[in-house]
């Protein structure tokens, strides 16, 4: 175990079906390999039905609460614009943020009752300045020929925030959690994501 490192809080948000849960599972394997205590909590059950999905991910020398204290998020990794904005208040003033540019319309917008929020990255930049990074995860995944790899692209981009963590930990985690036939694609997706920042 790593000694005397305070707990770091990572918040993942997205929509059911985007693969945010696999992304958090990859982070779990990575930070265990790096010698940390890890806790993560997600609410699923109805997520397959298009609801929002969030994961609280925490690592450090000793982690107690499985959920992050409101306002204490060090890193926000969001898979969808609206789902990024929904959790903007959770991020610490010096927190770092990755926003994926995908838009998935919620029912109220589909039915024409509400507007989808505009200028999400700009709203973040107003508060977090240069700590906001925008990634076209879907575009990168498309260029690799598989939209499903978007989640691993975002993990790749996110890995830039952790220069002390060996890249091989990420690759090992991807290989552990995915079927062998998906290894090549997802390692490429990770690398493409890493270059995107």
């Amino acid at each position, binding site marked *: 175990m790593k000694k005397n490192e305070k707990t770091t809080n990572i918040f993942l948000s997205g929509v059911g079906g985007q693969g945010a849960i696999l992304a958090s599972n990859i982070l779990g394997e990575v930070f265990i390999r790096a010698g940390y205590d890890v806790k993560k909590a997600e609410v699923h059950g109805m997520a397959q039905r298009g609801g929002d999905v969030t994961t609280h991910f925490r690592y450090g020398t000793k982690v107690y609460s499985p959920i992050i204290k409101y306002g204490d998020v060090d890193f926000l990794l969001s898979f969808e614009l609206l789902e990024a904005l929904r959790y903007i208040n959770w991020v610490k003033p010096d927190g770092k943020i990755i926003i994926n540019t995908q838009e998935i319309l919620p029912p109220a917008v*589909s039915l024409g009752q509400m507007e989808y929020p505009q200028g999400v990255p700009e709203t973040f930049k107003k508060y977090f300045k240069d700590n906001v990074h925008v990634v076209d995860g879907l575009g990168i995944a498309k260029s690799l020929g598989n939209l499903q790899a978007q989640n691993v692209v975002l993990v790749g981009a996110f890995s830039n925030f952790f220069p002390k963590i060996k890249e091989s930990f990420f690759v090992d985690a991807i290989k552990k959690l995915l079927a062998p036939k998906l290894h090549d694609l997802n390692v490429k997706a990770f690398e493409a994501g890493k270059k995107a920042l």
Partner: protein
Amino acid sequence: MKEIMQGNAAIARGAWEAGVKVAAAYPGTPSSEILKDVADNYPEIYAEWSPNEMVAVQVAAGAALAGARAMASMKHVGMNVAADALMTLAYTGIKGGLMIVIADDPNVHSSQNEQDSRNWARFAKVPMLEPGDAQECYEFTKAAFDISEKFDTPVLLRTVTRIAHADSLVQTGKRVESKMPLGLDPKEATKYVMVPAFVRPRRKAVEERMRKLEAFADKTKINKMEINSKTYGVITSGSAYMYAKEVFPEYSFLKLGMVWPLPKKMIDTFFKEVKKVYIIEELDPFFETEIRAMGYKVFHGKDIIPNMYELSPEIVEAAIKGKTYKAPKVRVKPEDLPRRPPNLCAGCSHRPLFYALKKAGAFVFGDIGCYTLAVAPPISALHTTICMGAGGGMAHGASKAMGKEALGKTVAVLGDSTFLHSGILPLMNAAYNKGNTTTIVLDNRITGMTGHQEHAGTGFTVRGEVANQVDYREIGKAIGVKEANIRYVDPYNIKETMEIVKEEMNKDEASLILCKDSPCMLLRRAKPLERFKSPLYAINMDKCRGCKMCLEINCPAISWKEGAGQTVDGQKRKGTVYINPDQCVGCEVCVQVCKFDAIEPAKK
């Protein structure tokens, strides 16, 4: 190396290492993964999905009586169903260790109510353990079987969503087979036949056992005292401990791993060591009521800690700091953003069924499952949801109260798994007591909402072996529904469904309507998409008048696009709709709703 495990997986692992031979469950969030994990990973354990939680507890109890270590797992409301068995098993005791896992859902992430299951332990007079992370899920599960055998009692293990569905590190070990011989002893009627003359001595045995368990509670390492501060201390358990420890690590803690019976001596010591004692617990003032009744002066408890929803680090911090707590700055008001509630999947057969019920003007007595989503506007075609199987009984009661007024106006709707769990008896009752209810059973062909678990109607066991498949029509006949009143509908045909439903609602006899050929969209095995003629439909802009009728079905694939335009024959429109080709599966429900034939087959 330690492994990262979900709380539920850690319970399965602990059970396996403890030598468990039989595990039974009915799925329910957040408990479902326990039994699935057992079935997938531990072939030494016989595992089954039982039709309901009561049967699951009976199965586990029988295995325990035969000398095996056994467990049943369920969500909090499942314990309500199984309670009848538990209350008397507490008297008979067990032979092989018996553990019942109850997963609570504070904040009702996916439930119909919020219960604090610690009350069952006090009510049934049995011990209960409450882990606070995956490592404890694993350790406490193993301990539960030892306690069960040592004290001849069923043991309850309580989790909450944030423990059951949280992942953390677990140091695992090896399986140890139970040394208890298997077999049934016919000479023990006084212990296992609960007729009044045999009950009374067992009743006394229960009280004696509780006294022994109280003494054990004071000695067991499952309860932990951490003296850090002499001024401030916290008595707590499970998830609440984790939140409190997170924000006030400098306080002293009495962490109760065994939440019933309470360790009276430890509590006394804690009050002597620490001046000001908070009691921080999720949901009910369970410890607080007991501890105040023991005569201790509690510094703060439910006067500052909420007694509903779930706790969190900031809720605990704000409660204790009071006015000195500084809330983080609000940058965007989340209430101004569009919500993202769950919705029936694109292509789901429940969408056209509930649309037809709405058009038929039915008051719908609903049940527990994905189809509760039909309550959401614009479908808004579900009018009650109480508990598993309630719809049929309530429809019957309403019709008896209203007499002929109710005829033709009500239906009960429930999924196939729910029907097998608790829906058969209300239907039998309606047939027997000259009722006129119409019961519609949906064709999920799986337990849908909880994430696809097999049941007695799917034809497969939890391990995927081919099994008997219930014949719903034969059930209906056997319990008294007349053959002429047992009908099939194809829910994807809205008009025909509406007509058949209306016919049956208007009959002054009990009816059973079975949905056919319309399995869960997410169940690949059942090939739900094969029946659709075209894999995709699109809007013909020459014909769309922007009337928004197709939005009434609330399909996730269909959205509104603002923008003036006109049809080829000159009809003006303010906007049109768009069918997302990534989401449309070709179910043709919107095609039937469109009055202008503007929705046509397209190529993917």
